[in-house]
């Protein structure tokens, strides 16, 4: 494959020679475009300069995140020797550096003719597919074809065809549409590190796909749908209920499937959520999402949704809101009420519940173990000693240490950012003292070869990140924590030394040395090992690095989308709630969007539900917890709700309601809870509040949330007196969508909680960055229009407000080391330390409702080390029984060479398997057949 790519690149290198250019950063140069002077940033290429100036110049192979290779020949401009030169020469603007005083012409007739000819060539083989192509209407090729003015086919010969491949449940392949820009391979292979998508064959027969049919292995494959400028790779889940971009009602949203809080755009049509696309945020996700985030939205449309308020144990259980409210009034006024919060509900909902039940009656719906670790994370970050790392900081870092967290599976986009950090550092080192611009992708890769920046990946078992890691350690969590403390000791000799094996000591010394050399190191850890010592160890390293580095960042990965927000509320754990209901008989519990059976072992949850007098459950999907509810209230999902999430770095971000569900019973949890509040107080109807009012209340109740109310513009924000439309101006079918029900159109739905309308009426310009419902600009219908919203291609959005950081960095704060480290891990006799193995596909509750995610999720197994397998007398695939909480499971064995002796791994979060005693010891017995 690489051969053909290199050929193309080699050709382009002959024509475009950027080597004579000296690169300087952040200085401005004056260039003359069509004889008009412009101030542009030096060090960029001409294409970036033109786009940042708002000049429409067509391109295909260039992408802000991927750099330039000059393969498509589409962005030609004419460059002149000086102001007297009238002849000029054609160059590819993406391959030409900015030089002060450069004269170029975009509108030159030769350049224009060249560009339209290139499109015409590309179109000779492009099929007559647009009507049935999912890319249509958001297609970069369509946009560029219109832009260059090619409108009539002069070529009357045959078109090339290709057979397609099956690429899994998420990506549809239609190879005929390919224009050979190589973006897919450059993204999938070079950027994301995937191995199974490549380019095959030669000359005008090149083929982009897999070696044979099969599921794309990279968990970032969904981005191909946005990276591909045509419809070769399209979203298969959208295909199930296809809607054009112009017909979607969209709103800015935040991904709910892990703690990173990637920004997304969620689109609705006919009352169903249709697709999730990336919403650029320079500090968080940039251009890319993981497949769980992109495709895990189907739960919103699930048949398993709760649609009807129920009061159980009555003749008629389904009730309307009036009956429900009457019933709840008696319940909440006559009993002690406690609230169980949720790590996947918004801050608003959790705060509304806390206010309703009172601070002392509010509990986190998570286990003591996890609660303790999360509390430690919050404490550590609140000291302000070390900055929290945004994904952008990770991409920009020059040395990364991952301590204990399997980020590939628990925070996939962070793993992608880590990869960029590693690649970026290698490129930076290779480019030192060389007159080669960083955007010159092919040349930089040629120079870098297999070099990598520093990454130490210390995890329990193997991870796909290992192959780009300089240093890899696989050990039990306690052992990893000790390694962490040992690294700190290397960095700060005043601390007491740690006893480790010789092997480990060599690695520790190497890691410490690399971190010490780094200017912008990042330390990553998290909760997935259920080990608090790791959190402390990671902090100690980061704190010690403050002495040597310019900027140190620390990132902790948490389990769920609002785990950080919930942890910051500082409530006590679920076990305390169980104690409370066991002691007092007259307790009514309100459970907020939380399946207790996913967070707690079943026997503890059972005790809770037995002892509770009444259980009021608010949730969006039926689950074991809702089965136990005495009163069940249908809650809105993220697509039907406004709310704020706090991501793993303490960044509060607002997500907006995409549509109002036709079923009036489905309401935001915080709205239900405010109604209950009004019932309790006996005043008002609880509907006078907007999200920012709840957040203001949150700030008053808990000063640690100061600033969260200004996370987004208030509900009455207007531009020139106009609201912002959720629908594009070409939204179709308004007078026919609902005419089967009644021919008179209903009044458009009103949204009192956000600056958005549900129609296309309103302000049509560029909204402030947290309020961008879709990316569109005249002539730019595809996602590439994000260029128009950025200060410069690939840079921050104009007036970007990338969320509200709730942890303040204190430059002067002196680090206090934790020092106390765990004992060395020793394998026990006949007992194994049970740890969770997370999976991108399958471990998360909500995304499992997407059939493709369920299809790709693993079967349950138990993994043990090679050394343990022999004494147990088991081989790969043989059955082993595990006894957990008086229940015995027989599971197939998977032998993992990387595991330390005495450690057992089990997939976590899969449906149908109860919560295991993670980080506890279990007995394993081989099953003799």
């Amino acid at each position, binding site marked *: 494959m690489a051969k053909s790519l290199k050929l193309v690149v080699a050709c382009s290198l002959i024509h475009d020679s950027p080597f004579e250019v000296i690169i300087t950063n952040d200085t401005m140069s004056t260039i003359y475009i069509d004889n008009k002077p412009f101030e542009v940033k030096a060090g960029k290429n001409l294409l970036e300069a033109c786009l940042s100036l708002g000049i429409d110049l067509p391109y295909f192979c260039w992408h802000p995140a991927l750099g330039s290779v000059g393969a498509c020949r589409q962005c030609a401009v004419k460059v002149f020797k000086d102001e007297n030169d009238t002849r000029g020469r054609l160059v590819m603007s993406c391959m030409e550096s900015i030089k002060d005083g450069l004269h170029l012409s975009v509108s030159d007739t030769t350049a224009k003719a060249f560009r339209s000819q290139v499109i015409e060539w590309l179109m000779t083989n492009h*099929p*007559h*597919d*647009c*009507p*049935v192509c999912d890319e*249509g*209407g958001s297609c970069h090729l369509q946009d560029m074809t219109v832009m260059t003015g090619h409108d009539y086919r002069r070529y*009357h*010969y*045959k*078109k*090339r*065809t*290709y*057979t*397609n491949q099956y690429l899994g449940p998420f990506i549809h392949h*239609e190879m*005929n*549409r390919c224009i050979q820009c190589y973006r897919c391979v450059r993204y999938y292979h070079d950027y994301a590190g995937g191995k199974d998508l490549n380019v*095959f*064959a*030669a*000359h005008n*027969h090149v*083929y982009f796909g897999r070696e044979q049919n099969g599921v794309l292995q990279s968990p970032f494959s969904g981005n191909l749908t946005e990276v591909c400028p045509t419809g070769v790779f399209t979203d298969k889940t959208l*295909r199930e*209920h*296809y*809607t*054009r971009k*112009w*017909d979607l009602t969209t709103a800015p949203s935040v991904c709910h499937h892990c703690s990173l809080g990637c920004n997304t755009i969620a689109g609705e049509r*006919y009352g169903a959520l249709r697709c999730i696309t990336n919403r650029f945020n320079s500090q968080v996700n940039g251009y890319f999402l993981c497949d769980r985030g992109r495709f895990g939205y189907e739960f919103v449309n699930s048949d398993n949704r709760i649609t009807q308020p129920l009061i159980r144990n009555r003749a008629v259980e389904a009730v309307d809101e009036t009956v429900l409210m009457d019933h709840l009034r008696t319940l909440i006024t006559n009993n002690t009420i406690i609230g169980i919060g949720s790590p996947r509900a918004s801050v608003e909902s959790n705060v509304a519940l806390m206010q309703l039940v009172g601070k002392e009656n509010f509990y986190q719906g998570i286990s003591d173990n996890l609660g303790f670790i999360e509390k430690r994370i919050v404490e550590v970050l609140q000291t302000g000693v070390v900055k929290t790392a945004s994904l952008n900081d990770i991409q920009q870092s020059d040395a990364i240490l991952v301590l204990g967290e399997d980020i590939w599976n628990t925070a996939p986009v962070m793993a992608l950012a880590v990869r960029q950090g590693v690649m970026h550092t290698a490129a930076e080192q290779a480019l030192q003292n060389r007159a080669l611009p960083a955007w010159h992708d092919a040349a930089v890769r040629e120079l870098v070869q297999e070099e990598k920046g520093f990454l130490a990946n210390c995890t329990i078992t193997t991870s796909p990140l290992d192959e780009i890691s300089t240093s890899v350690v696989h050990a039990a969590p306690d052992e990893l924590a000790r390694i962490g403390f040992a690294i700190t000791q290397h960095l700060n000799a005043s601390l007491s030394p740690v006893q480790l094996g010789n092997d480990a000591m060599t690695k520790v010394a190497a890691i410490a040395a690399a971190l010490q050399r780094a200017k912008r190191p990042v330390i990553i850890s998290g909760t997935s090992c259920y080990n608090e010592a790791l959190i402390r160890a990671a902090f100690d390293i980061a704190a010690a690095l403050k002495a040597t580095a310019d900027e140190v960042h620390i990132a902790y990965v948490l389990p769920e989308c609002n785990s950080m927000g919930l942890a910051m509320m500082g409530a006590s754990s679920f076990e305390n709630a169980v104690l409370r209901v066991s002691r007092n008989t007259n307790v009514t519990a309100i459970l907020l969007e939380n399946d207790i059976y996913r967070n707690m072992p079943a026997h503890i949850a059972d005790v809770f539900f037995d002892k509770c007098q009444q259980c009021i459950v608010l949730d969006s999907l039926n689950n074991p917890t809702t089965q136990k509810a005495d009163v069940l209230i249908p809650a809105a999902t993220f697509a039907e709700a406004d709310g704020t999430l706090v991501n793993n770095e303490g960044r509060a971000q607002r997500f907006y309601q995409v549509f109002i569900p036709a079923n009036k019973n489905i309401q935001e949890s915080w709205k239900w809870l405010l109604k209950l509040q009004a019932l309790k107080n006996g005043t008002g109807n609880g509907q006078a509040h907007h999200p920012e009012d709840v957040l203001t209340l949150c700030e008053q109740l808990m000063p640690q949330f100061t600033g969260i109310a200004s996370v987004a513009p208030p509900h009455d924000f207007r531009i020139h007196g106009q609201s912002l439309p959720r629908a594009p101006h*070409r*939204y*179709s*079918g*308004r*007078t*026919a*969508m609902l*005419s*089967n029900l*009644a*021919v*008179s159109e209903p009044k458009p739905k009103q949204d009192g909680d956000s600056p958005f309308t549900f129609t296309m009426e309103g302000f049509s310009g560029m909204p402030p960055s947290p309020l961008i419902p879709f990316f569109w600009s005249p002539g730019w219908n595809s996602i590439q229009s994000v260029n128009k919203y950025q200060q410069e291609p690939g840079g921050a959005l104009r007036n970007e407000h990338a969320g509200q950081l709730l942890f303040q960095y204190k430059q002067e704060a002196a680090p206090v080391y934790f020092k106390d480290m765990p004992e060395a891990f020793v394998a026990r006799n006949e007992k194994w330390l049970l740890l969770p193995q997370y999976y991108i596909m399958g471990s998360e509750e909500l995304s499992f409702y997407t059939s493709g995610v369920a299809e790709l999720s693993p079967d349950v197994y138990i993994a043990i080390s090679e050394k343990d397998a022999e004494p147990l007398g088991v081989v790969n695939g043989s059955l082993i029984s595990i006894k957990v909480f008086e229940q015995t499971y027989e599971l197939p064995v998977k032998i993992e060479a990387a595991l330390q002796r005495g450690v057992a791994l089990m997939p976590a979060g899969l449906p149908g398997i109860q919560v295991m005693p993670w980080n506890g010891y279990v007995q394993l017995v081989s099953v003799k057949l």
Partner: protein
Amino acid sequence: MLSHLRTMWLVFLHLFHKKETIEYPEEKAPLHPRYRGRIVLTTDPDGGERCVGCYLCAVACPVDCIALQATEDEEGRRYPEFFRINFSRCIFCGYCEDACPTYAIQLIPDFEMAEYNRQNLVFEKEDLLINSQGKYPGYNFYRVAGLEAGVKKKGEGVNEEPPVDVHSLLP
């Protein structure tokens, strides 16, 4: 005075002219084939539904009176799951027909669509679909499109080369 008399004379003469009035509805007015009347969905020469659910008619419609949902059969052929035109809003501008890339939606010379109840002017797919190719006989989109949707195999369409053999290095 003279003018009045002249006018009366001319009116009188009209008694003997040929009648222009058409006795509608007993007698039908002759309409051109491209008259913009009732909207129909046509079928292709093989009898299949021509509409591929591309949404171009809906987006071209200035009064937004077309709503549809595309779906796909097991062979990958797109068709509308539902297709609805609210004729009480339609202005018969013919933009939908102009926009249609498959000649599926056509305006035909029939305007007799009056209803007492406005709700009856909402036409669903079964009301719109006719068993005819309409004004453009012989066109089947899937024969000229690149993709394979059960109509032709890859490379068997109009002006198509057989699929590329990726193992071949021949020029």
